[in-house]
């Protein structure tokens, strides 16, 4: 995909905000929320790599997030690995599960793809929740997931951990941007726009889909590791299919397929949730209504609509000069 002026401006704006806000010393709860948003943003960006770039709806991404969380929790607690070892494990396990899913799910397309990924992820949920209780702690979960250490900085300090997560998020965005603008990214976009044509041009579509899915799984696994570490707790709820639903809502809210959409969606979702839940305990239902309205009236999402408005503005300005 080509990056427009809009993408660059918007990115700069986001970067500025993410750096300035914590410097204003806003209190621990806000920092916690920002960190949470940054982690979910990694997850959503990873998800949107399949959803927006490839145009396939996966209802199984909760699994990759969840197994990432378990990987880091188990690796650090049972096998004595350091956090970074656990995080690498989480990425590898997320990718491995995505590869496993792709063998089943890529045999079907469209709505069946969504259903197969849903069924598989629910299977994993049941396994973790009851069958592998000895290994995963069942529905009690695993508590005391550790945080990383880096050159003596204490990441149990919320602000320090926020900077760490923000750094990881920036790295992830770099990877995603370079992937999307690479020849690989162009093939992916071609498959989304016209699968038959991409096939006829001689691209091995299934292979490309598989690779995209695996990358997406790896990013989700990383997000899972960070999330478990932020909450210092891991339980099967992260694997439940409603988590996959949440990430879809976030991505659509922000605008799927756009560069910053997933991130903005997460930020809006998390802050709406925080704000609504201080008003009413039925915030989830209200959020559902907001989401339904967005789906009907603004299918491009927040960033998508802004992008359109920006393009019209630019066109008008140019038109005026000539």
């Amino acid at each position, binding site marked *: 995909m080509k990056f427009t002026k809009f993408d660059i401006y918007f990115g700069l704006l986001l970067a500025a905000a993410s750096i300035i806000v914590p410097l204003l010393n806003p209190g621990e709860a806000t920092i916690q929320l920002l960190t949470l948003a940054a982690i979910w943003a990694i997850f959503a960006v990873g998800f949107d790599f399949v959803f927006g770039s490839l145009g396939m709806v996966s209802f199984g991404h909760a699994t990759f997030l969840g197994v990432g969380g378990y990987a880091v929790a188990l690796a650090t607690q049972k096998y004595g690995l350091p956090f970074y070892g656990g995080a690498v494990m989480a990425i590898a396990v997320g990718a491995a599960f995505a590869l496993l899913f792709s063998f*089943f799910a890529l045999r079907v397309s469209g709505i069946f793809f969504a259903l197969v990924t849903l069924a598989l992820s629910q299977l994993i949920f049941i396994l973790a929740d009851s069958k592998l209780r000895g290994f995963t702690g069942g529905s009690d979960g695993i508590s005391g997931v550790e945080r990383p250490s880096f050159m003596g900085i204490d990441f149990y300090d919320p602000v320090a951990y926020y900077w760490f997560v923000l750094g990881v998020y920036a790295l992830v965005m770099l990877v995603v941007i370079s992937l999307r603008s690479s020849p690989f990214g162009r093939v992916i976009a071609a498959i989304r726009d016209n699968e038959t044509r991409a096939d006829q041009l001689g691209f091995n579509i299934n292979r490309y889909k598989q690779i995209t899915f695996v990358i997406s799984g790896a990013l989700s696994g990383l997000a899972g590791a960070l999330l478990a570490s932020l909450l210092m707790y891991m339980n099967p709820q992260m694997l439940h299919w409603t988590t996959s639903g949440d990430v879809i809502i976030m991505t659509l809210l922000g605008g799927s397929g756009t560069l910053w959409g997933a991130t903005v969606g997460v930020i809006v979702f998390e802050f709406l949730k925080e704000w609504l839940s201080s008003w009413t305990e039925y915030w989830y239902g209200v959020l559902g209504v907001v989401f339904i309205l967005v789906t009907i009236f603004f299918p491009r999402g927040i960033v998508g609509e802004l992008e359109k408005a920006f393009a019209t503005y630019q066109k008008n300005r140019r038109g005026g000069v000539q």
Partner: protein
Amino acid sequence: MLLFLLAAGLTLIFGMLGVINFAHGAIYMLGAYVSFETGRRTGSFLMGALVATLVTAVVGAVVEKLTLRPLYDRPHFYQLILTFGLILVLGDAVRFFWGPGYQEVPIPQLWSGTVDMLGSTIPIYRLFVIGFGAFISIGLYLLLEKSTFGMLVRAASSDAEMVRILGLPVGTVRMAVFAIGCGLSGLAGAIAAPLFPIELGMATNTIIDCFIVVILGGLGNIRGAIAASMLIGMVRALGYVYMPGWVDIMTFVLLIGTLLTRPQGLFHRATRTA
């Protein structure tokens, strides 16, 4: 049979409208709660079932009209995702009215006993559920295959544009189908109410079972849904006898096996010959 009642509504909606209704489980839950409330006020189970069916059908009609209608021309996944939003709304609406706790509905007096059959004791209520499911499945079959309304529905699903050109109300037909599908689900909720505790988790747990049946039977294939719900029922029953604890896993293995070998559903060929 309960699974069938549920899956029938889901597969009906998919087959005729091309919409995967994620909120089907939520409608089922709503049906259970409404029947609980009506039953508590009037003391009549039948009244509860009737009101639950009507209320969920009306909810379905309203939902179709307000939210799905603008989306038919968009890719399928918008509808899928929209109905996910509905789960959140319906779930919190139910929590608002009835709170987060468990509720229970007594088994109706009329069918509260047990009978001995083939050496085992079976509650009459379960027999009633089976009989009622059979009755509904026959009724649904007749409605879709033999009546004028059914003809219209099938025509609208295969070529909506043509039906519209012929001057027939496609929108209303779709609304009716969605309402019937939701009504069936609500009815299933009412019938399930005496068997299981009523709780909020019903919405998200049930839908997975429904999907399994619908995929196994082939999306949109009502006869397939009947066969698949029986198959799942048998697998579960046998599973509980021989390997309790592995039942869920077995169900999913069956599902994944089916998707790998016959993604169109186990009973695909049966529809072709029909």
